[in-house]
């Protein structure tokens, strides 16, 4: 069961736009960097989903990962903010304009270290944002220090051994209230693309931790983030098939082994069980699954947890339908009688 709407090059999408429209400027990251593959999948996903680039707002913090929003969706507004603080910038922008489709790119240091506080609270709020962590277990831009997602015992190129337990962003996200939590591998095109497309259909926080090897500082024997290691230990818990709302196709599946999740926009997500205890709509089960895989030293990948009905932060705040940023003075400045009433109460 494949992704139904893969589009060969040269074609246009449902908006009549070519894939070039979804590309960004040329990458300045290292050749072979996992992050570049992720940027390509983002381009594919937005192209295939037929999202108007102008509707998208891109956010990032600081680090190699955070440079990447310049390398996709040139037609979208972008905000490359400060280290670890992408979540707050994104939260403000998405509240100011609820029609934006937000995508944030962060790294394991940007999120797990300096940005862990803002990460935690964005997850709690279920802010409607696709939050991608390009996770290579090290700091690239400052030349190869350990990050908090580095596995215990993993060795850096310079011989430094990670002697603290890793922080698992997916476990945290599920605990904290994110309504869509996934892990993938930059080298798994098919899975990552399907997850990204599902994320575009979701309304709420989508935390996608993408294992993305750093070819320069963390791709050697002894590292648990090398291409070879991740490839060997990537254990998909479920096969992800995504049927977008605009594809009127029938997919047959075995209800005993495949769960169908109906997304906010009418798209359908078919999650075919690969692990026996994979129950992606059950928070406790998802946490148990993650813990089991981690104990075995495997990376559980796929959509780990999903709750398409959880109210997003925008829903929770009960905002008007029009973007707050566009409200005219007539709707934001109360009339004279209001000020007079207040003044009278203070006399």
């Amino acid at each position: 069961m494949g992704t139904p709407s893969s589009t060969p090059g040269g074609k246009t999408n449902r908006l009549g736009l070519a894939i070039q429209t979804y590309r960004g400027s040329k990458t300045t990251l290292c050749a072979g960097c996992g992050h570049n593959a992720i940027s390509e999948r983002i381009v594919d996903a937005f192209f295939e989903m037929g999202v108007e680039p102008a509707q998208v707002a891109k956010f990032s913090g600081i680090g190699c990962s955070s440079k990447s929003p310049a390398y996709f969706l040139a037609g979208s507004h972008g905000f490359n903010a400060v280290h670890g603080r992408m979540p707050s910038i994104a939260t403000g922008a998405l509240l100011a304009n609820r029609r934006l489709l937000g995508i944030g790119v962060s790294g394991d240091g940007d999120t797990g270290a300096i940005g862990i506080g803002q990460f935690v609270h964005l997850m709690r709020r279920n802010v409607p944002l696709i939050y991608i962590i390009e996770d290579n277990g090290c700091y690239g831009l400052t030349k190869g220090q350990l990050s908090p997602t580095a596995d215990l015992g993993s060795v850096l190129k310079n011989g430094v051994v990670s002697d603290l337990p890793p922080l698992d962003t997916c476990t945290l996200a599920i605990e904290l209230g994110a309504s869509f939590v996934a892990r993938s591998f930059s080298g798994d095109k098919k899975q990552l693309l399907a997850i990204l497309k599902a994320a575009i259909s979701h309304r709420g926080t989508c935390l996608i931790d993408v294992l993305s090897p750093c070819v320069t500082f963390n791709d050697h024997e002894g590292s648990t983030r090398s291409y070879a290691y991740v490839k060997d230990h990537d254990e998909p818990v479920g096969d992800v098939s995504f049927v977008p709302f605009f594809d009127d196709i029938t997919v047959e599946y075995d209800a005993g082994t495949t769960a169908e999740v109906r997304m906010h926009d009418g798209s359908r997500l078919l999650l075919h069980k690969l692990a026996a205890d994979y129950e992606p709509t059950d928070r406790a089960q998802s946490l148990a699954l993650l813990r089991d895989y981690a104990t075995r030293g495997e990376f559980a990948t796929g959509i780990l947890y999903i709750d398409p009905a959880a109210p997003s932060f925008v829903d929770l705040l009960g905002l008007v339908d029009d973007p707050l940023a566009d409200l005219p003075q007539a709707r934001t400045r109360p009339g004279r009688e209001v000020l007079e009433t207040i003044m009278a109460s203070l006399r």
Partner: protein
Amino acid sequence: MIPSDVAPSMAPAAARDALILNDCSIQVATVNGSGSQTANLVLIRSIFQMGVPVSGKNLFPSNIAGLPTWYTIRANARGFIGRKKEIDVLVAMNPETARDDVLALPPGAVTLCDESLGVHDLRDDLVTYVVPFDALVASIAPDARLRRLVRNMVYDGVLSTLLGIERDEMRRALERQLGRKPRALELNLRALDAGAEFAQASLVKRDPYGIRRMDATAGKILIEGNAAAALGCLMAGVTVVAWYPITPSSSLCETLIDYLETYRRDASTGKATYAVVQAEDEIAALGMVIGAGWAGARAMTSTSGPGISLMAEFTGLGYYAEVPAVIFDVQRVGPSTGLPTRTAQGDIASAAGLSHGDARHPLLLPHSVEECYAFAIRAFDLAERLQTPVFVLSDLDLGMNTWMADPFPYPEVPQDRGKVLTRDDLARLDGWGRYKDVDGDGIARRTRPLDGLPPTFTRGSGHNEMGGYSEKPDDYVRNVDRLSRKFETARGLVPAPEVDTVEGAALGIIAFGTSHWGVAESRDQLARERGIATSYLRLRAYPFADAVEAFIAAHARVYVVEQNRDGQLFGLMRAELDPALTARLRSVRHYNGLPLDARTVTDVILSHEEPR
């Protein structure tokens, strides 16, 4: 006028014959959490209702209950309602502090105390009235818990008789406070009467102070600066609020939330035309404000010193990436946790250049609740016009205390949403660039998501005028020089100073914010007591207007008065103004956490002008 309920025994000495009318400071010393707030608000409100200019200042500890707190009321017929250094009337209710409170009084001051405190015979140079508080409350409230709560209303009653504060006005004020709690109201009214009647029957007036009805407060309102600023935000049309609780700024956003919930629901759907987020910290609060401002919302946060320190990095981003943001700083005493419940003007230097690297930010400096309101509205316009963070520097004294004011005017000026690129611009301009200065004022046109115009990639890293990433030396210099040009534009847009030039005065005084109240009265003291005429420039914003140099040039010596140890404004002036002129500046600094009083200013100026 003789209050009708003053018994004959008090009448000859009461308000009618008081030597000092409508000019006194009253300090009530209590324990926080003891319910003294109601009694104190009734006291200030009843004086206000009698038409006498008055202010109330709460000097409270960083604590919920059980520590000493002092409430100071200043009534002054001529409108000098800053803190008075000397206490004229002390109401000693706190056993912990009574001794120190009494020992600190100037000779001739009045004390109201319970005999059980053991302070009534501590000094023989005071006018002491002994009031049996316990016996009086026991007669009206059988329940011990209630007794504690109404005990404070007894001193209101005693003061009503002693000073001639009309008891009917106290009753009105009390009804306003407790109108919705009939049982509490009734008990308090009885306590008020018990105090007043005791004074009539048992006390002989021996002090000179009195309050007499006048007509200086008609039509005025009473409000705290934070509430005034919140009203300004409401009327400015704020759409995104992100904040983190911190004394003394919390009540700004809390009041704003109340107003928004009441007045900013969409008429047809009942949905919110605003978003409020209580953030995880001040960093996130400003991040949300900058994110929202970038997307086109009118966004604000409020904080105090520790929050300002945390906001440094994001403020630099707002400055360099050119995103509107409004930040209220209700200043308290620093550094570090400092004195969280005491007032200061200690953030002006850090706010002016907040960030690493070169950065300058417009600061608006309100001195009154009227300006808290007006500058709040103006701050949003300036932030969008200048595409940069704009600070409003209030302080604890202004923000949390009760001030009289004229009713606030409805904003007649439409919102200024700043230079937003239009389709016409795009056709007219020869290639739009996000940071291209086509008008020569340093302000470029911006686009916002979903406005149908070219996208912007905003970044805190180096960029050229097209908004592209750049590390080129020339691009960097061109960009930051344009930001300097923009700051020059700001100089002409921020509120101008208020200047009172007195012909022939050799001395000038410069002050900002709440220092105004001490300075205004000090000028009166200098003129009346020493015949020294002074001119006065009240700074209302940073960057400095050209009028500041002109003012210094017109005076032989100019005293810069502020509430911090290091003379921060004085330092900024010396750094930025003509050195030939700044040699004329003298620094007057007050930094003990109490609001600035006139006598302190007068004494420092005299120590220079009339050295002994």
